[in-house]
């Protein structure tokens, strides 16, 4: 895993929509890949391109607007990442270049998938999101700083704090290998397995 996130300062791309689902973030036709790489090209494909082949950019879509190029922060609204559990969604966002998604709220599975892929999901209140959207929509190069250590977002001199669980924070900051950590708990897992009622064990009953 990479080395972790602490602070990100960048301009932001404003995707002003509620319920952005993972079918939009990365449509199904790209899910047949057996690797984790290369999904950024297809991020928001059906919104980003006018044609199925992805050769004609939709110039009205926020990621195609010149003033938002290079943004490492994506702004959105309520229930971002709802729908399918596909981890291809955070892979696509990260591969495209986003490091942080700030939204009013996130769907649960998507949120967890972000944490496991070094993509920081930050949720702020509706009015705080309104302020950030206003700032970015009136001046695209407005810099937003997301400080994970202090759990704050700052923009134009204002500071907003956000919550994140200690485990998720540590995972992101240290770039932890969650599996490696759990493997160290093997003795506890085995102790637990001794207590499992037999009907719940692997289905070899004979």
């Amino acid at each position, binding site marked *: 895993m990479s080395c972790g996130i602490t602070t990100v300062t960048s301009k932001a791309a404003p995707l002003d929509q509620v319920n952005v689902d993972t079918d*939009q973030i990365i449509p199904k036709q790209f899910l047949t890949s057996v690797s984790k790489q290369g999904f950024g090209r297809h991020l928001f494909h059906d919104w980003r391109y006018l044609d199925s082949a992805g050769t004609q950019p939709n110039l009205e879509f926020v990621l195609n607007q010149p003033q938002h190029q290079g943004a490492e922060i994506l702004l959105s609204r309520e229930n971002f990442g709802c729908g399918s559990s596909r981890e291809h969604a955070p892979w696509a966002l990260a591969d495209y270049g986003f490091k942080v998604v700030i939204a009013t709220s996130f769907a649960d599975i998507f949120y967890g998938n972000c944490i496991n892929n070094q993509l920081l999901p930050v949720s702020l209140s509706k009015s705080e999101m309104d302020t950030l959207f206003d700032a970015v929509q009136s001046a695209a190069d407005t810099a937003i700083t997301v400080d994970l250590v202090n759990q704050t977002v700052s923009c134009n001199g204002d500071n907003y704090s956000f919550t994140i*669980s200690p485990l998720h924070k540590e995972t992101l900051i240290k770039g932890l290998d969650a599996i490696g950590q*759990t493997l160290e*708990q093997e003795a506890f897992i085995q102790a637990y397995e001794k207590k499992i009622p037999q009907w719940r064990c692997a*289905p070899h009953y004979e």
Partner: protein
Amino acid sequence: MPKTLYEKVWDAHVITQDGHEALLYIDRHLIHEVTSPQAFDGLKQKQRKLRSPDKTFGTMDHSISTRSLAIDACGDNNRRQLQALIENCEEFGVQLYPVGNVKQGIIHVMAPERGLILPGMTVVCGDSHTATHGAFGALAFGIGTSQVEHVMATTSLKQHKAKTMKVEVNGTLPFGVTAKDLILAIIAKIGHAGATGHVIEYCGSAIASLSMEARMTICNMSIEAGAKAGMIAPDEVTLAYLKDKEFAPKGELWELACQDWSQLTADPNALYDTVVTLNANDIQPQVTWGTNPGHVLGINDIVPDPSSFTDPADQEAAKKALHYMDLTPGSKISDIEINHVFIGSCTNGRIEDLRAAARVVENNKIASGVSAIVVPGSGEVKKQAEVEGLDKIFTQAGFEWRLPGCSMCLGMNDDLLLQGDRCASTSNRNFEGRQGRGSRTHLVSPAMAALAAIKGRFTDIREFIKE
């Protein structure tokens, strides 16, 4: 302290705990071709073992053809993915049910059929509709591929305790109104994100009277309200379904299991973070009009005006949805004409669903200009339907009778709609482009989909049954 059903299953699976975070033991891990290859790769790269191959079961469902048993029938990319699943299952010793095997099917249809899902278990799968299995009183939820790899390596998952929501439904579903209509009405009530962060427990007399198939339909769509999982306490209906299933415990073990399962109900005074109640008598057949499952109304309602929503963000979303769906506020739902019908998916691809649709279709023909397919949820469903002659009823009416798989629920194969097509679908998501770029999906029950095929438009099933 009285406990909810969720809390009981949670507590029974805690390996270690730190505040609200716990390492939970996982009893069953279901895998399919789309979300497993990168996880297997992760194991290989780090030279890690699959810790519990005997608790891991795989099938092929998303990327397969419904016209041919050949794994290359949908092109090279799909073939590569299916081939990777075959090789990984072989290498790591996982039981796989490949295409052509009668036990193959949509993972959430075939796993219960095998008796793999038992009350009080934890069940995970790299798929958001894993919530289906909560119908057995299991704690079942969808996970991402990193977590798939974590479960593979450790038979466990780090989890935060969810909030709890009780959805109590009393009364009786009116004739012609099904579990699909009920869950759509529940989603309409709590909202597309209304249960985010929660595990839902469904209870009440209307839930207790449902079959296992119907309960699976309910729990399946819990995720469509944002919930992590949905659960229903096991009862006589559950036991009758499970008894003698291939992987269900037998003999003395069955007795022991039944004793344990009898404890799996919420305690009388258990506290929930949220409580929602509905009366089943009030529910009409439901039809979605927009681009998420919360955009749903009764068959006799009219397409809403965006200004009728209070929240400006919802107004904006409704405007966008109506534009995408090409619908006019004020027009009748029953005036919406469709040109495609899809009957299938892990929501409504079970035998009861096909029976309900076949009853409507029998001795009728699909309307001109409509194309319609029936895709059984599994090989077992297909076999049973053919024993009962349902396939003949469908084909005589003009439906295509296909091989089992996810098919047009998301179109990772060649079952895709074209730009502007409008479909009555028994699946679970009406997101933009879900069934094909620019296509329009309306979610309905199997009987309502069957009737739409015959009439070419949405029609109240209750009127038809009276006819």
